[in-house]
């Protein structure tokens, strides 16, 4: 079986990498192509680029930034942000994305997943699910960068998404994102039970132990941003540590 994939995530806006809490006070963190290339050299298994405000601003993720990242890396690139239809997906793929991630547009019109899978193959279609829960309640799907809560449960939606053509689930815990308290293991377990496609855990991962727990809960890949941008963990050192803990990783 494949080892666990370590995926750094670049949040970009206006062609720059940004970091902020809940999209407030976005701070400039550098040039996306340079950062992506550095992560690829360190042994990143894949790069995810999210244009964090694209949907809210009613536009597509920055094609220019994607083109320069594509030139700089020889590993897979997933791009999300503002995708509204097959034409948008075509533009992102033409710019150099290998997969496109979509959240709000798929919730609004689930048939879009099928259209994308038929046109580009399901391995190109990543269903991004942002979820949060109230107390012990069910995990609810959030859209439009967390500004809208849908009456849709994460597990149910993941199952439907997989049936409709998603080839992978990018699963973000809105409760854990930015907290460094570890991935939401209950959420991962719930979605793992619902689908047979790969699941990427996202939100709250800051330590090797968090990643080990996410994999034990059923994740095939783990995504993180802050710990890499801040330099707290270099990917090669993180992978060494994960291997020491008994996880299979590509080194």
């Amino acid at each position: 079986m494949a080892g666990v994939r370590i995926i750094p995530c670049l949040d970009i806006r206006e062609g720059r990498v940004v970091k902020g809490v809940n999209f407030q006070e976005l701070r400039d963190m550098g040039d996306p192509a340079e950062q992506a290339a550095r992560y690829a050299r360190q042994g990143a298994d894949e790069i995810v680029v999210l244009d964090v405000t694209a949907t809210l601003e009613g536009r597509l993720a920055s094609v220019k930034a994607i083109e320069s990242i594509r030139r700089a890396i020889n590993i897979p690139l997933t791009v999300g942000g503002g995708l509204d239809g097959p034409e948008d997906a075509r533009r992102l793929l033409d710019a150099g994305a290998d997969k496109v991630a979509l959240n709000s547009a798929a919730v609004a019109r689930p048939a879009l997943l099928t259209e994308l899978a038929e046109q580009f193959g399901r391995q190109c279609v990543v269903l991004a699910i942002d979820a949060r829960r109230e107390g012990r309640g069910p995990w609810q799907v959030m859209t439009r960068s967390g500004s809208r809560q849908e009456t849709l449960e994460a597990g149910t939606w993941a199952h439907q998404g997989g049936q409709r053509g998603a080839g992978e689930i990018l699963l973000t815990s809105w409760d854990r994102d930015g907290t460094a308290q570890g991935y939401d293991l209950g959420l991962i377990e719930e979605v793992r039970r619902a689908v047979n496609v790969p699941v990427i855990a996202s939100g709250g991962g800051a330590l090797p132990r968090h990643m080990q727990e996410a994999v034990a809960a059923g994740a095939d890949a783990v995504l993180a941003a802050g710990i890499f941008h801040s330099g707290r963990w270099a990917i090669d050192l993180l992978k060494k540590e994960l291997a020491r803990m008994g996880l299979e990783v590509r080194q």
Partner: protein
Amino acid sequence: MKDVFIIDTGLANLRSVEAALERLGCHPRRVRNATDVSKAIHLVLPGVGAFGPAMITLHRENLASALRQRVLAGRPTLAICLGLQLLCGGSDENPGIAGLGVLPARVSALPPGARVPNMGWLPLAGGRDHKEQGPHAYFAHSYAITAGESERLWVSGWQVLTANHGGPYVAAARKGAVLACQFHPELSGDWGQRLLAAWLDSSPGKEMSWPA
């Protein structure tokens, strides 16, 4: 600068393979007619999507026989992912549709129980016993040639690498200057880039070899 022709049927995502070729100092050109497929020194058959529609497109654009001929002649041809599957006799994905039939094998669905699609990096194994552990390559697929078919490939002169996802399957096969990869060399890091360089260095009289 080396011209590399890439078959553009409008289905595949070509940018990543173009970028990889540009990094190696090549000049990629998108083509979709039989003359270009025949005359190309180096030709890439990329592929995403489904087996049946892709074969129908190759026939409709009149590319199938030009492709078959250059593969049979051992001319530098690189088939990626679905491209490898199209070289086979047929696929369980669309059982009624014949493939190009230049790889003596049949494509089947990845075994039940394995995660599908298979997305991620797997170590490659060499040798007829699939034992020599090699570098990792990046895969994104739901169908494959099971390793049980690989003996037929070896007997026909193909050198085979395998990977394991719920069971061993064919990760790559090469013969002369023809290279067929189930994985994506253009996304397989530095080793993938070395593999592309080795293929670019091959010619009808100069067989390629697996890079270290």
